């Protein structure tokens, strides 16, 4: 007797452990995705007053939208940034400075000027996209910065170039040459920043990154020793960029906004420009095709099999095969689609039309099974009642049985659609895996879908795409949760007990 109770308790314990483990894994996965993906929903921008120079964008003074559109707005933004940091005069420094800007930095300005040509010649305050690296730096993927006030009086030898700083007490860390494999030491003094390269007791030699306003001696406490804890070689942004970005932040020229571009832009090779609009529209078009094909076919097949078909060997075989089809690996449907829709019928590659057809094949068994179950759940007394008052079999089915089965059919359809939304493998086979920037406008345009977009991004080496991948996963999960939520709501709302 006691052994039996022990066995029962042990079994309950196994169950709890299993559920607990599952829950923990689920929480870890969700937390990881959220943690990685949420930063991708914000984006940092520089806010500048950019002088819209007619010579750069409309040299012929036509003021025609086409002419203006072709103008080099990127150069305008670049020049503005160079104007803020004039000391970056050599090519290498300029290239590094330009690297802070996204390659699409001029787009917002272009749109504004094309819409309103009277802005030409004026200075326009405009938000400018930062590069992915700069964006990541502001999101905390840069370095920890510690500041320590100088205790002695420091005297720089010059205001720019390679200089030496002498302090009256030992302000600098241990002696030696500083390499980029250890934390960077900098000195913020007289409005400028010096990167230290060598320390000898109270004296330190370094490169000026931001020019000093004067070479005057700085009193104790008025200057700082700044440490970038992460070594430069382990960072994607160098000390020079960090100095610039920190300076821009101090100027109030950095702004963090909600990343609408993520939802309004198509794919891009530049992480900061890439968005999921193309994938969302592709998914919507694909699902639309799937639904249009699947729902009528699936429901018709279910009604026929459940209500009209004669029960014999053939229908039994069909039934078994429908159940088997539901278990066929999805990649097989992809191969089928490749062979039939692309090669035989010659439909366009990468098109949502073909994707929808393939997914329809995939979802059809699910819908048929769900619809049959829903039809079967309608009590036979309802059909008998209809037959009893002289309705034909077909009338009884379409007037009474089918309407009562609709909630169940819809629930099954939504779950099938959610399944289709998350499906990736068969779409890879029919070429929806291509890099497509344009948002598709119709079912025959080339496009991709959300899960394939995730797959594509997850393959890219840029760190910024990791966040994009996670963010796209969040969007996909939200859609799936919403769809399943609707299905559960429908089931609860219209569930009938007889």
């Amino acid at each position, binding site marked *: 007797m006691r052994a039996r109770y022990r066995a029962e308790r042990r079994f309950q314990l196994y169950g709890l452990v299993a559920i607990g483990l599952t829950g923990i894994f689920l929480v870890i996965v969700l937390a990881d995705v959220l943690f990685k993906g949420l930063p991708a929903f914000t984006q940092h921008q520089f806010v500048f007053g950019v002088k819209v120079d007619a010579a750069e964008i409309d040299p012929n003074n036509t003021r025609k939208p086409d002419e203006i559109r072709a103008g080099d707005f990127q150069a305008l933004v670049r020049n503005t940034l160079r104007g803020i940091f004039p000391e970056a005069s050599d090519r290498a420094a300029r290239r590094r400075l330009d690297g802070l800007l996204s390659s699409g930095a001029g787009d917002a300005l272009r749109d504004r000027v094309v819409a309103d040509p009277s802005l030409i010649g004026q200075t326009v305050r405009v938000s400018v996209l930062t590069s992915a690296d700069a964006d990541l730096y502001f999101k905390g993927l840069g370095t920890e910065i510690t500041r320590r006030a100088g205790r002695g009086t420091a005297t720089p030898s010059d205001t720019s170039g390679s200089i030496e700083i002498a302090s009256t007490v030992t302000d600098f860390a241990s002696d030696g040459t500083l390499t980029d494999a250890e934390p960077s030491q900098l000195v913020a003094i007289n409005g400028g920043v010096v990167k230290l390269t060598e320390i000898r007791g109270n004296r330190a030699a370094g490169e000026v990154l931001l020019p000093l306003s004067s070479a005057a001696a700085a009193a104790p406490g008025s200057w700082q020793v700044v440490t970038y804890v992460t070594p430069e070689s382990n960072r994607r942004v160098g000390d020079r960029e960090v100095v610039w970005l920190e300076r821009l932040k101090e100027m109030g020229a950095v702004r963090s906004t909600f990343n609408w571009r993520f939802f309004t832009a198509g794919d891009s090779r530049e992480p900061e420009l890439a968005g999921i609009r193309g994938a969302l529209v592709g998914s919507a078009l694909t699902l639309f095709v799937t639904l249009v094909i699947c729902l009528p076919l699936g429901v018709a097949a279910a009604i026929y099999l459940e209500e009209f078909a*004669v*029960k014999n060997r053939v229908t039994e075989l069909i039934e078994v095969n429908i159940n088997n089809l539901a278990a066929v690996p999805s990649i097989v449907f992809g191969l089928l689609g490749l062979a039939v829709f692309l090669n035989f019928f010659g439909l366009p590659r990468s098109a949502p039309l073909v994707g929808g057809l393939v997914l329809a094949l995939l979802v059809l068994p699910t819908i048929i099974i769900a619809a049959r179950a829903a039809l079967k759940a309608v*009590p036979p*007394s*309802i*059909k*008998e*009642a*209809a*037959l*009893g*008052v*002289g*309705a*034909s*079999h077909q*009338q009884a089915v379409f*007037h*009474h049985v089918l309407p*009562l089965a609709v909630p169940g059919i819809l629930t099954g359809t939504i779950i099938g659609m959610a399944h289709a939304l998350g499906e990736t493998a068969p779409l890879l086979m029919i070429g929806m895996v291509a890099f497509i920037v344009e948002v598709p406008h119709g079912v025959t345009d080339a496009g991709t879908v959300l899960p394939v977009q995730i797959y594509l991004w997850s393959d890219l080496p840029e760190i910024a795409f990791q966040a994009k991948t996670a963010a796209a996963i969040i969007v996909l999960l939200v859609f799936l949760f919403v769809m399943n939520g609707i299905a559960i709501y429908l089931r609860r709302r219209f569930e*009938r007990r007889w």
Partner: protein
Amino acid sequence: MDVMVHPIKTPGPASAAAAAAAPDSAKIIARSVNVYYGDKHALKDVSVDIPERAVTAFIGPSGCGKSTFLRCINRMNDTIPIARVTGEIRIDDLDIYDSSLDVVQLRARVGMVFQKPNPFPKSVYENVAYGPRIHGHARSKAELEEIVETSLKKAGLWEEVKDRLSDSGTGLSGGQQQRLCIARAIAVSPEVILMDEPCSALDPIATARIEELIDELRANYTIIIVTHSMQQAARVSQRTAFFHLGVLVEEGPTETIFTNPSDKRTLDYITGRFG
């Protein structure tokens, strides 16, 4: 077929002769009806005449074939794929198993009320209006409303539901639901109403109302009622048929069956020795 007490001893195809021999004027004439469910011989060689504008009760223990026979009369057994019916059933000289017969028309003439109240999960109005609508009995909306009202009145339900015709039929009480089903059957103006244990799911008060109703309907309709309650059969019917193991054992005026049955099995059943 050893014992077969029946006004007509020889089941024969001569329907004219049969009609003459039938009590009162026979509405339904069944001859040598056999029903098979797959290999199971559920109903064995049943021949009976059902009089017009009277209540005939089918009694017998469970599984004796009384419901099966009832369902033959409006061909509801057609909906069971494995069921097979042989023999002949005529309603007013119309062979209802004739291959040219339209089952839908037959079921409009032979209404049915089921064991469990089964109103459509629609409004009270829609429940009653459905039959006339699919048969095209009403030419206008007003006409349809009139049919619904008369049917509900005949079923004795009008006073209770006239203010909530748009409420769901499934929201009514069990007895009301069953009367709604009767109204639904009446609405297509049938000649025969088949009732398959119409009161088995109802409480005694609702049962009494239905029995009252059956008694009223007798004036206009030929009613066949299957029942497990011998008291009910005695109360509502004029004629009673006793089925046992798929065989029609005895059929005759209700009074005779209950007071002076000629077959021992009938006697055993009505005195409660089995069943």
